[in-house]
């Protein structure tokens, strides 16, 4: 294993896990500010859960075969969806609809002062 392979693996993890995680964290914590170290770490964990969990449940529940195409599709959806929510839907009011769809989970537990 060369240094280049290790570097590629690290960069790959950042792209595949940190990026979707960061975007989804932005969606879910849109109007809340958290510290940068925690934000990064939470983003990575959220990405790990979302990407790996999606692949697992696609295989386990929907019998989707795990290959390059399906994994790329899952990754793309997980990447594009939060971008769409954050930018495309931001001004259209659909974000509020999205939050309402989440029901009690979409509301703040404690409104900020």
């Amino acid at each position, binding site marked *: *294993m060369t240094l280049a*392979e*290790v570097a*590629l*693996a*690290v960069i*790959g*993890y*950042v792209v*595949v*896990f940190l990026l979707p995680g960061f975007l989804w*964290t932005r969606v*879910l*914590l849109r109007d*809340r*500010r*958290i*510290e940068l*170290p*925690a934000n*990064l*770490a*939470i983003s*990575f*964990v*959220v990405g*790990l*859960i*979302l*990407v*790996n*969990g999606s*692949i*697992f449940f696609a*295989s*386990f529940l929907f*019998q989707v*075969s*795990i*290959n*390059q195409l399906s*994994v*790329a599709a899952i*990754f793309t959806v997980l990447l594009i969806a939060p971008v769409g929510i954050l930018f495309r839907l931001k001004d259209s009011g659909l974000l509020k609809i999205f939050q309402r769809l*989440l029901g*009690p*989970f*979409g509301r*703040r*537990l*404690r409104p*900020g*002062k």
Partner: protein
Amino acid sequence: MNPEPRSSESSEAISRGFQHLLPLGVVLAAIFTIGYFQATSAFPFAFDPYWFMGTSRVVVQSGSVPHLEIPTPFATTSTFVNIGYVPTQSTGPAALGLLFGIDFFAAEQAQTTIIAAALMLLVFALARRITDSSVAAFVAAILLLTTPYVFARWNFFVPENVALAAFLASMYLIMSGNQKPFLVALLLFGGLAFHPRSFIFFAPMLFVAWFFLGTQGRTFSRVIRRMFRRESIAATATLVIVGLPYLEALRINLYYFLFVGATYTLAVSFEGQAPSLEQISTLLNLYIALLAAPPAVLFALRWKTISLGKRVLLIWWIATWLMFFAAPIRNFPVDRFAFYVAVPTGILGGAFADVLVSRFRRSKWSRKQALTAVIVAALLGPAAFGLNESPLKNPWVAWGNSEAAAVTFVEEMTAGRDDFVIFTPEYSLPYGYGLRHVELREEVIAAVLDDVTDVSELRCRLSEEYPSSSTFVIIYTNISRNQLGTRYPVLRAFDPATAAFARTTVWVYELPRC
């Protein structure tokens, strides 16, 4: 809610402190990372990524994530059983392999290293949230990282990390007032899906965290004060009582290290405490019943009129029962315990460092001296790891119901006898079952296994090594057989048909003298 605004003076002090410590942190992190990657050559047979690398390969080759059984030839044995794990841990490297063609092993190592970094960052953020001190936060992060090293169970970062990281992230969100229930639920339950058994460990802790830390701007000293308030004292007492049995792990390890010559941390089995009718009458249960039941009935009757504080007490009551039923679960090895205990150790250590630094400040010690003391404290962990004499610092851990049954079998088989030696390459052999005459010196185990190639040779070699024993009990699992078998072929030479005890994952053999 946004985090509490800090004063500029405080922020400046934090920045200054952090600037001093940052280079050291970078150096330490680099040392750990290099050591971790070098482990591939130093301990090629005892390294968890191999396990997940194999599973990743199964994912890619079979096109599905293994969850129940994988037929041969994908699995090395006829069945591939994941006990309680959703193997998403190995899905990550598989996904990377498919998308970028990255080597599974490199991907697994990158994953582990990055999650370790994420854990450190989370503990750093948590500790800073509690103590409002970067110095404390730094020490907390270092302690988190080094505690598993001290226990020589770094490999537990691999299967456990996502659940733990998700738990810490949830805790951070609760503490910082960012209580987005959806995200907290995603983090907690999603993370626990990686390791369902963790749920019974983490769920009560999350209740407690919610209770003690849920309010904005709560510092460590306030948390401590709150713990000893009248309405909290019962919850604190419960935490202490529930935590006491875990000290047994420490006691057993100290005993074996000091008096038996063990060179590695022993996996202690906490005996299950699922309450039976007899146990209900014990003092502990009586205490809980007496203390918890009347308020619970009262709360149930007057829920709508009672105050928030008393509602919290009800949560404590539920958490107590959860902890009582779930925390002292069976087969909770000390390895995992050590890993989880790293979190409170880190945070408490950070708080201690905070106290230390402020005391030094008051006693006119210079900042440099104070920081030196903190750095020395932070280095204790790696130093302790270096003093660990185990040649296999990353032993395989294969622990499940079958292994428990095997050990129980051995315990019964050897009851009342003294003419035997238990000789096993299973470094995670669970202790606390009353097993006796176990060979704990790894160098002896390695030397004996190195010298022989078949079972009859092993018998003779063991007879030489232990002249006063007439029987040798060999225990091994399929993981050590498959992984250590490359180095020690004798482990693959046993005939399963002659096993005294056989399960799909574990075998016990009783060999007479040569």
